[in-house]
């Protein structure tokens, strides 16, 4: 584990006006995630965990606070998120509850797309995409469109896409919610492998307590605040 965190969120607040009152979705969150760590974020609905993921993933700006990724100060209340698209492409990987694959592309093309939009030549992108799918045990489905893949296969393709640009930080929002327990466990194992083998920081927002043993750290969210559970030795 390196000293410098892959993700550092400091004093993050996100407040929304709602009529005469203010909704405090995040209310001063400080979290550091280091390379090689698999971090689980738990909490009830409305506790602020998805808002945290949005802010950490540079999809929303915080009302107050700062976000640093790999030591670069990238987001703050006045940040222009459109200008951070290149940064997101090269440094971040996203996985969601739904696989969100593009329906008119095959599995391999969905993965290769993430490389081609970063100017990787088509043949090289395709070859690397197939390698990734092979590593995630879905090589045989590479030429199938998403509609012909099972839910678990789709989620593996989504993980492969998230890994395509070799990001140091992967953010996953309820990635196992649509899967049965066996396939959900497989996907969580996948994240565990990615964190260990690729030395990436992986943050997983989840409700699912069945894979709790796989996390290095667990952070509980409640009322927009984050509390880290003590590590079990």
């Amino acid at each position: 584990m390196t000293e410098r965190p892959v993700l550092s969120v400091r004093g993050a607040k996100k407040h929304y006006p709602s009529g005469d009152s203010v909704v405090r979705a995040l209310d001063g969150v400080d979290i550091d995630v280091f390379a090689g760590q698999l971090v689980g974020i738990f909490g009830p609905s409305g506790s602020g965990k998805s808002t945290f993921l949005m802010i950490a993933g540079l999809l929303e700006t915080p009302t107050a606070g700062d976000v640093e990724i790999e030591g670069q100060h990238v987001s703050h209340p006045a940040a222009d998120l459109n200008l951070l698209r290149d940064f997101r492409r090269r440094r971040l990987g996203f996985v969601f509850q739904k696989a969100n694959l593009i329906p008119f592309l095959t599995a391999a093309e969905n993965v290769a797309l993430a490389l081609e939009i970063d100017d990787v030549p088509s043949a090289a992108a395709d070859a690397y995409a197939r390698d990734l799918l092979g590593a995630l045990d879905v090589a045989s489905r590479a030429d199938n469109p998403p509609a012909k893949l099972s839910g678990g296969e789709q989620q593996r393709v989504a993980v492969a896409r998230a890994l395509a640009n070799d990001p140091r930080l992967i953010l996953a929002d309820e990635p196992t919610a649509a899967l049965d327990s066996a396939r959900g466990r497989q996907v969580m194992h996948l994240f565990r492998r990615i964190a260990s083998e690729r030395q990436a920081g992986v943050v997983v927002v989840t409700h699912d307590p069945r894979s709790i043993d796989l996390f290095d750290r667990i952070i509980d969210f409640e009322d927009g605040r984050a509390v880290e559970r003590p590590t079990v030795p």
Partner: protein
Amino acid sequence: MNLAWKDIRYSPARFLLTVFGVAFLMTAVIGMAGLYRGIVDDALLVVNRIGADLWVVQGGRAGPFAEGSAIPSQVDRRVEGVAGVGEVRRFTQFSQQFDFEGRPRRATITGLDFPKDDGAWIDLVAGRHLGRGHYEAIADASTGLALGDQVRLGLDRFTVVGLTTQMVDSAGDGLLFVTINDAVAIAQRRTSEEVLLARARRGDQRVVSGEPSVAQDSKIAAVLVELAPAADPAAVRAAVERWGDVSILSAEQQRDLLLNARLWKLRVQILAFTVLVVVITCIVVSLIIYTMTIEKLHQIALLKLIGARNSVIVAMIGQQAAMIGAFGFALAVAVSAVIFPFFPRRIVITPVDLGLLLCIDAAICAVGSWVGVARALKVNAREVLS
């Protein structure tokens, strides 16, 4: 990876239906433009091809194509004597309805001053030009006559010796060329009752004196003038205009009268319809591309989420619009080539007009793309999660 093409291959039926829709709208635009061009060409056909520098017509009138014109048939001899005049020909043209094979037909009888003019300026698709002073005709195929057909016009029977295509007047009636003397005879046709009534009015004195019992005011529509080499057209015009009983017009004035007087309202009407169809096409194509963009908002949000540049998204929408426009236009040209020959009026499609319409098609697709791109660029990456 061409996202536009991948999307089209994923749902080809939707793309093909869209292309068909655009193609038929563009076919309508090509048809309107071609109809306009055809009407103008038809109207100017005789003026452009007959090879006259000046037209001598009835005094105070604008000539046979703009309004009625009747001058004595001997005026050509007067005109021939004017200094600077090279050659003169008599000309007349009028609409005629006749029966052929038990069905009523229409034609525009055009008199040629045979033997000076045997119709050599007429492009034939079959047969020959006029070879005799009487009872021969060159017919346009649109009259329904064929080579060798015999048709009764006035009191005489004419044989079709030559056949043309696409020679019609500004109303779309096919031209039927006969000698000018035959044309005058056809125009002077009288029923028996008309002759009897005329005789009754005038008594039998003229019959006794050998004069015709019915006035035979032999009239033609115009005298065509070809100037001698190095002749001064202004001097010839001034000499003829001094007579007072006739007017003289240049071929250019005849064209101007046809286009800007007789056909003006029709031209404006056709152009207005063309503009209307273009506007409708633009709205429909914009709506189609906007709808296609709306259907892909989730994918567009995902592309933004994984960091795709705007150029990737713009290219996807723009290329699809371009493919719709290109395939639609190509299909429209093909459909036009197949169906327009069966239309009652001539549809003239020129390469220049097609080039211009292709530019309009491209502009329409650009507007449509702009509408789609404007919507796509408003999409927020976090909409993937919605």
